[in-house]
């Protein structure tokens, strides 16, 4: 935690920017993990919720002059509703079919965003450019450093919400539905409600993340929210560790930094690496990096004794 606070002061602006983005992704990954890791509902289309949050923030800031910090909860609210509404028909879909439906959502999203009848709002294929928020004078921080702390604060808040949710009754219900849906139903868990709520909350997290992302990147355009974004998010939770809160952080670091490093090898390399890692992790490390860390800690603990 202390390291996280100290970092912006020792690293260059560009690195701070990258770290900020990693934090943004971590929030999105926590959201997706809730849905897929804890509740067992596969989503290959969460990029769509990220895009929704981003566009809500961009439109509010650009068309209505709403201050940036207000747009974040607004985006969250919109996505909470959108996710819940999408979750309702999705109730009837299991595993594979849900993956199909969300895949369709992910693929169709850029086209929806480019739809000419809403171009007035969305800026069409060119998207919207957002002004970068200024750091307040009393802080003495650069813009990037200020943004970093804003995002860090949001991340802490979201993680706290998530942690609370997952430890409580809702979280147990979610896991029960994932592992034994019929038994859960028989024991009185309102499966339909929990599943839809989980979709909504998961979308909310991703929407908040999208809004923050838009603010940090200062730009939204339809083609940045293609199916590849949705797939990146899935890569993130798989590498980080399904059904793990810390996993969101490991996964975010992976999907933020690996493409940058791999890009230097070749344009195709990042995705090739994603693909290989996805398959490898499924065979070899299904619990992801978080699982590995847990294992190492347990072994270390035993060895010390």
């Amino acid at each position: 935690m202390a390291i996280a606070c100290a970092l912006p002061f020792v690293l260059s602006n560009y690195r701070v920017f990258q770290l900020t983005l990693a934090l943004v992704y971590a929030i999105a990954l926590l959201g997706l993990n809730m849905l897929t890791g804890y509740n067992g509902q596969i989503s290959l289309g969460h990029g769509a919720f990220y895009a929704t949050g981003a566009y809500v923030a961009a439109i509010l800031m650009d068309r209505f002059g709403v201050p940036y910090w207000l747009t974040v909860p607004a985006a969250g609210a919109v996505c909470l509703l959108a996710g819940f509404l999408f979750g309702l028909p999705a109730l009837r879909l299991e595993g594979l079919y849900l993956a199909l439906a969300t895949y369709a959502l992910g693929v169709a999203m850029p086209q929806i965003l480019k739809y000419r009848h809403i171009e007035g709002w969305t800026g069409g294929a060119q998207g919207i450019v957002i002004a970068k928020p200024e750091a307040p004078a009393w802080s003495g921080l650069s813009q990037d450093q200020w943004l970093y702390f804003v995002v860090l604060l949001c991340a802490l808040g979201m993680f706290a919400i998530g942690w609370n949710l997952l430890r409580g009754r809702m979280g147990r219900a979610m896991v029960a539905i994932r592992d034994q849906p019929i038994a859960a139903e028989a024991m009185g868990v309102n499966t339909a409600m929990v599943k839809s709520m989980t979709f909504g909350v998961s979308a909310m997290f991703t929407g908040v993340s999208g809004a923050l992302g838009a603010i940090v990147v200062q730009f939204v355009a339809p083609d940045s929210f293609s199916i590849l974004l949705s797939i990146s998010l899935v890569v993130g939770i798989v590498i980080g560790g399904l059904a793990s809160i810390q996993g969101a952080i490991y996964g975010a670091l992976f999907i933020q930094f690996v493409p940058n490093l791999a890009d230097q090898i070749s344009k195709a390399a990042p995705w090739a690496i994603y693909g290989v890692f996805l398959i490898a992790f499924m065979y070899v490390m299904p619990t992801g990096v978080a699982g590995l860390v847990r294992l190492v800690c347990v072994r270390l603990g035993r060895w010390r004794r």
Partner: protein
Amino acid sequence: MNALLHQMFSGLASGGIYASVALALVMIYQATHLVNFAQGELAMFSTYISWSLMQAGLPYWGAFFITVAAAFVIGVLIERVIVQPVENAPILSVVIVFIGLLVILNSLAGWIFSYTIKPFPSPFPERPLFGNSYVSSHELGSIGITLIVLALVFVFFRFTPLGLAMRAAAQNPASSRLVGIRVGWMLALGWGLAAAIGAIAGIMVAPAVFLEPNMMAGILLYAFAGALLGGIDSPGGAVLGGFIVGVLENVVGAILGTDIRLTVALVLIIGVLVVRPSGLFGKVRVTRV
């Protein structure tokens, strides 16, 4: 009227492509109850193989048949090496492996062949047949080839011993073992056939959409829609669904504007899944508690 007819024929041509890919999807689904998310990328990669063969000097049809054979082999290998180990894993793992495959094939194509868009030749003459203004020779030829492939597949499954064994292995693997069928190899064969069919679809569509690594992404979505509409466990239904989606997509695109076409697929997919998941011709499945 002219325009509508033209749209319908175009729709049938693309519908044929969707029908082929949908058939490939259904073949794998019938045998494994899994949807191969990487089907489109497999087809795309195979199309690149035929492009390379032609660049190396092979005539069109020579490259065509060699590519189909190569795709078959690749499909078999993928099933044996990558899919078989996760056969009994939870659905999330399998979906992730498929996505991984999708991504690897896509980036491999980009790396080996670069991302620049390439033109792809058509074996059919430039001028439309009989000088008509509704349908190009390529579209007509494409529909023809699709129908031939589908007919061959139908005959194979219905009238040959191997086709019968594959149907049996897909429906009832346990009983199939009891008559001596090597079920594992039947699955591999199914993947091989699906890959071959996909390759033909890719080769047929490339002249129209141009060859590039992302060319199949939208087509895969339409194929999903077609397969679901027709019934994901009914090969005949999937083919019909593919044609319907093709025509629908073109006609709706002409009326509402082409930029909304993918959304049509999305709406169709969700609609079918919610209203009648078994599709028009599939079997309704009842889960016993």
